């Protein structure tokens, strides 16, 4: 073929609408992608990492405009293309894989028909040839039973299968370039590993260039040939994957790589002896009522779960989506009522208490939520958010406010934060407020449900440090729910691995990471992206 790079972006600046916090989404950015190369663009939220990909597709969000520079695909500037040319380019020469495969597919159309639309738009594979091509593609991306899937609707597929359909669609016309914007972020680790394998295979067998946008250095380590690091709209470092990961030049890159939690379990101070919380034979089944037609579909969300947490101990509950880990957490604080089983707090079964009596006990059992924005009432000042709980338990206002001020300082936000509203804070700060709220009642047990999964990695590291410190200082029993084994390794004394509602492995973190017994645990550990990264840093 020829030597012109498939992508050549020269001094590209994209302007943000006036009145934003900065004038440009990306500023003076240059990058090239050679044919058959995988380039990863890494950055935290707000770094402008997705903007370059949108520009190449001619799909800049409303309000964003190219201010200067050019973005060329195969030597042709996207900015000066006519809409007709741009339409011809999309799908045929450049294809895109989106983050959320469910919203990228039309929910009311059979999957096969959605790909046929693409063929019709580009006048390719007419009639029967189209169906044959789709079956071939489904087979290639490893979808089970293509003959059946072709006539299914998106909701009938799992998340991983949907993403494979989106990839098959991207591949359909053999584009020279695939733009992938965080395509594995919404997927479980094991599925993510399979999708990354598939992308490598596509590059190997078809010579397709891939621009892969991600926030995850683990994924970068596994996939990239070259890496571009973005910060606040600027390209700050560029180089081969080995060079950037082993010898980063910029302090920001160093900080990002250092913030990725290591897989080697951390040394934690030993927990106390006293058992604070104990779950025995806890079971929760969803579904059940059958309605008028058809029989009931039931799902055992939590199936005979047993574990104990001691004072000063962190127990990690690890699992993928649908494993029942969140339901288990919610059962502990009784947001979900279990069907069977006992929840013993200092030996007393909480399930036996009537709701009103239990309400007084709630002080001791607190929770930190996943989404720091939706877990704070948008209409209340932080002061009210923090003091509502203690006031409900009979603390007087002066004491509650003094404690709120103390805790704000303790989580690193300062007293001035008390008079502000939740939307005035960043994600990491909001999560600190969520932590402070849980601490206001001086609890003995805290359930933290994926408290850092919505945060950027550098912020994630700070919040984890805070949790770690606070747990030690207050001698808390912490139940830490996560899908991220790296985070679990850094924080948890023991872990319980959940799969389809059951605990399949339970024990000391170090022992399980070193020698997993259950095949599912092994599969999980093998799927962690960027094991390579740990070898480099070790």
């Amino acid at each position, binding site marked *: 073929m020829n030597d012109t790079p498939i992508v050549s972006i020269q001094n590209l600046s994209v302007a943000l609408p006036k009145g934003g916090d900065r004038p440009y989404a990306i500023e003076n950015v240059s990058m090239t992608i050679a044919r058959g190369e995988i380039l990863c663009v890494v950055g935290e939220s707000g770094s402008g990492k997705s903007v370059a990909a949108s520009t190449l597709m001619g799909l800049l969000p409303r309000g964003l405009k190219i201010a200067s520079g050019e973005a060329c695909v195969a030597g042709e500037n996207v900015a000066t293309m006519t809409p007709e040319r741009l339409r011809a380019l999309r799908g045929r020469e450049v294809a895109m894989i989106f983050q959320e495969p469910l919203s990228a597919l039309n929910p009311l159309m059979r999957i096969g028909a959605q790909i046929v639309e693409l063929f019709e738009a580009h006048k390719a594979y007419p009639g029967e040839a189209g169906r044959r091509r789709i079956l071939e593609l489904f087979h290639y991306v490893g979808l089970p039973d293509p003959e059946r899937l072709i006539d299914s609707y998106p909701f009938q597929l799992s998340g991983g299968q949907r993403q494979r359909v989106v990839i098959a669609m991207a591949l359909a016309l053999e584009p020279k370039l695939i733009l992938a914007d965080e395509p594995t972020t919404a997927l479980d680790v094991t599925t993510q590993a399979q999708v990354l394998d598939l992308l490598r295979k596509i590059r190997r067998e078809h010579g397709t260039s891939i621009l892969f946008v991600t926030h995850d250095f683990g994924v970068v380590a596994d996939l990239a040939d070259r890496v571009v690091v973005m910060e606040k709209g600027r390209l700050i470092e560029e180089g081969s994957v080995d060079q950037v990961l082993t010898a980063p030049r910029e302090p920001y890159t160093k900080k990002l790589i250092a913030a990725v939690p290591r897989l080697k379990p951390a040394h934690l101070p030993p927990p106390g002896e006293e058992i604070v919380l104990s779950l025995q034979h806890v079971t929760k089944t969803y579904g059940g009522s059958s309605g008028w037609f058809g029989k009931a579909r039931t799902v055992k969300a939590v199936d005979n779960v047993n574990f104990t947490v001691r004072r000063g101990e962190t127990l990690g509950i690890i699992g993928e989506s649908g494993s029942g880990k969140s339901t288990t957490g919610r059962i502990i604080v009784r*947001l979900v009522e279990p069907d069977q089983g006992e929840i013993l707090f200092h030996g007393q079964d909480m399930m036996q208490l009537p709701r009103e009596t239990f309400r007084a006990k*709630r002080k001791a059992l607190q929770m930190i939520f996943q989404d720091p924005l*939706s*877990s*704070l009432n948008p*209409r209340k000042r932080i002061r009210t958010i923090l003091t509502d*709980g203690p006031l*409900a338990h009979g603390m007087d206002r002066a004491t509650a406010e003094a404690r709120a001020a103390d805790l704000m300082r303790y989580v690193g936000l300062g007293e001035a934060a008390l008079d502000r509203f939740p939307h005035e804070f960043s994600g990491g700060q909001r999560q600190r407020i969520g932590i402070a*709220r849980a601490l206001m009642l001086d609890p003995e047990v805290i359930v933290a449900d994926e408290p850092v999964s919505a945060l950027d990695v550098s912020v994630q590291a700070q919040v984890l440090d805070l949790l770690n410190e606070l747990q030690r200082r207050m001698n808390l029993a912490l139940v830490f729910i996560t899908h991220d084994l790296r985070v679990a390794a850094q924080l948890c004394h023991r872990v319980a691995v959940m799969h389809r509602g059951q605990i399949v492995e339970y024990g000391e973190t170090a022992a399980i990471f070193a020698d997993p017994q259950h095949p599912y645990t092994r599969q999980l550990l093998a799927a962690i992206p960027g094991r390579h990264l740990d070898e480099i840093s070790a």
Partner: protein
Amino acid sequence: MKSFWQRYARNVGGLIGLGILGSIVVIALFASILFPVSPWQMQGAPLLYPFEEPGFPLGTDMLGRDIAAGLAYGTRVSLFVGVVSTAFAVLLGIGVGACAGYFGGWIDDALMRVTEFFQTIPQLAMAIVLVAIFTPSLPSIVLAIALVSWPPVARLVRAEVLSLREREFVEAAIVLGRPTHKILLDEILPNAMPPVIVTASLMVATAILTEAALSFLGLGDKNFMSWGFMIGAARTMLREAPLLTVFPGMAILITVLAINLAGEALNDALNPRLRERGQ
């Protein structure tokens, strides 16, 4: 608060609506100063044209009553009925909707069946029946209008509460041990208010129309002059003196239009994201 007014002020129609509404309220408040004589009093020759005689800017009706005075006093009745009946309807609707949405189960089923029962009967027909049963008076008109107009509020509040109670900040309040009534009143309802306020503003307009229709049919309060009564009384003279019906008709039109303009601007200001999407 500042940004709310900035967003509201961006809507020119909303400002016009608010301006008209303001003047209408002023007229209602000062009706007895502007027109010290009762609007029922026969003051001049019957069927004067506007400006035919000084002191009667809009002329007189078939009994020689001042039309301008009638309109000014009618403003009081219309605004009173519109605002008070809407207030009752909104309170009832919020109560029913919040309980149905938050508690769910059989409570939801029972309350929603009642709501649907009220919704299946045509509003005006039921209002007529209710006023006829209670005997026509201002309180019975307000009550009747409130009773026929609460179901949409209840459904709206229920839907809002259903989605809000799944939010994490509500779960956080449960975990903190706040009592149920506090969670409902303090956490959920304030967040459900913006769409209710918008609906309420438009309900005021509907209530004014319903009151006018009732008065037109002779089911108004005989102690108070109202726009609907004026139209009803002038109906027989429609061909001889059309202006007698045109003026109160215009008053209803302008008031309802102003309220709708203001309500729409309120909607845009309270839900800024919806507006951006529409552009």
